[in-house]
């Protein structure tokens, strides 16, 4: 029993170590030529732009729901006029970044895990190497960069669509105009609300890309292994996002003490 637990801990520690090395290598290689600029753009398009509809639709839905909750709590204090600002701050500071990152860990993580996993088991990664291409740089670094670029943008889309959803709900409830709603939304938001929270999604993007690339790269045992790599990519990157979020929020509070008031 203890033996089994010990083995599991050793395995997990080993994998975590390997994954960290993989991440460090991705960071280091990102600054070493040759830079696969074309491939990075292709990935931004493939992973980022193509996720925009998912993020937009989810953003609106989250905005509607958040608005209904905000209304329920603020109505009690007769503070309905605070709904837009309250919703905007909740979205921008936390709900937008985290929801976007978790949704994308599903879409992008599963995609990268399956694609790179399939390339591993069908020897396409070896074929890249044999063609004198650094497969790690070509596949992993490009995806990591693409995700680091795409996540803050998609988060901003999420925030904006969330506010739009908030407006729709509010308009239905009280007939508030679009102009007034957005004026009130932005009335209390500060740069310090938006910038650190949005930039932290770069870390989330890096986590998604590196975790799922790692699982794809280390895929063994055929088609079954590809499926496993894909699922585990989503599970592990979601967990790592949620855990690292705790640390990141602490860091943000440390550097922007004003946000705690």
């Amino acid at each position, binding site marked *: 029993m203890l033996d089994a637990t010990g083995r599991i801990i050793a395995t997990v520690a080993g994998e975590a170590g390997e994954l960290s090395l993989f991440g460090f290598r991705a960071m280091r290689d990102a600054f070493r030529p040759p830079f696969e600029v074309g491939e990075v753009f292709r990935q931004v398009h493939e992973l980022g732009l193509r996720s925009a509809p998912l993020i937009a639709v989810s953003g609106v839905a989250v905005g509607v729901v958040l608005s209904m909750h905000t209304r329920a709590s603020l109505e009690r204090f007769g503070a309905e006029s605070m709904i837009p600002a309250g919703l905007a701050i909740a979205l921008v500071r936390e709900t937008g970044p985290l929801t976007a990152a978790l949704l994308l860990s599903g879409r992008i993580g599963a995609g990268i895990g399956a694609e790179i996993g399939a390339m591993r088991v069908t020897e396409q990664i070896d074929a890249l*190497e*044999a063609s*004198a*291409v650094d497969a790690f740089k070509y596949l992993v670094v490009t995806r990591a960069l693409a995700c680091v670029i795409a996540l803050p943008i998609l988060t901003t889309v999420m925030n904006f669509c969330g506010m739009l959803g908030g407006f729709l709900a509010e308009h239905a409830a009280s007939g508030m105009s679009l102009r007034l709603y957005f004026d009130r939304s932005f009335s209390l938001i500060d740069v310090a609300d938006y910038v650190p929270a949005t930039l932290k999604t770069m870390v989330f993007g890096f986590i998604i890309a590196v975790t799922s690339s790692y699982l794809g790269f280390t895929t063994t045992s055929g088609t079954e292994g590809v499926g496993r790599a894909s699922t585990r990519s989503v599970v592990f990157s979601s967990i790592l996002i949620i855990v690292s979020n705790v640390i990141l929020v602490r860091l943000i509070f440390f550097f922007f003490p004003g946000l705690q008031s």
Partner: protein
Amino acid sequence: MTAIAGVRDERPAVRAAVSVAVQLDRVSKSFGGKHVLQQVSFSVAKGTGVAILGRSGTGKSVTLRTIIGLVRPDSGRVLVDGEDVCGMTREHLNTTRRRIGFLFQTAALFDSITVGENVAFPLRRHTDLKEREIRDKAREKLEQVGLESEYNKMPGALSGGMRKRAGLARAMALDPPLLLVDEPSAGLDPLTTDEIDDLLASLKEDAKTTLVVVTHNITSARKLADRLVMLHEGRVEAEGTIAEFERSDNPLVRAFMTSEHAG
């Protein structure tokens, strides 16, 4: 091979060193405790062909992979143009790999791009050719393997034999002086096999391409190989010319040499 001693024999030995394209020197490799290659040594002279024969699972593909540095031997050296593949820096290894064409046993085409783009891939990566020239060259290589009309198809839409030929076209894209091919005729009908063999033979004759071919087909081996290496359970069981193999009384070699009548 017997050691050469004496002053008179030194000069040919030195000349041999420069004219050797590939040399494996006591290469051993295990995967998880399983000894796949054990002290494998042979060499391939520039501009000649060597066929690697042997039963399934004896380490032929692994041998080919060590030459291009995809498999690192546990011990022993692999020299390409006199340089140790294992000791190379990343850049050096890539420079060497550009001079090597590699056909995987599974073809290993990139399945997210078209067949034509697969062949164009090495050209895009490693040459300064213009878009038009790249396409023309890729088309020409596909033509040589009889796939000119498949340029815009996706690899998934090809048959096994077609994929293999497309893989060969990609391996030939940069006109490498060294071509490593893993069972080029597996999955091909006898007529196409002959055509591919003729193509490889012409590369050897006209372009002086060095060939290392894994094959089960003795007819192909006759056409392409100046020397044969027979692997058995990870060791070199026999090595020599076709004529030597024909005279051999090694039962395994005999079994292989007579199998041609069957197929």
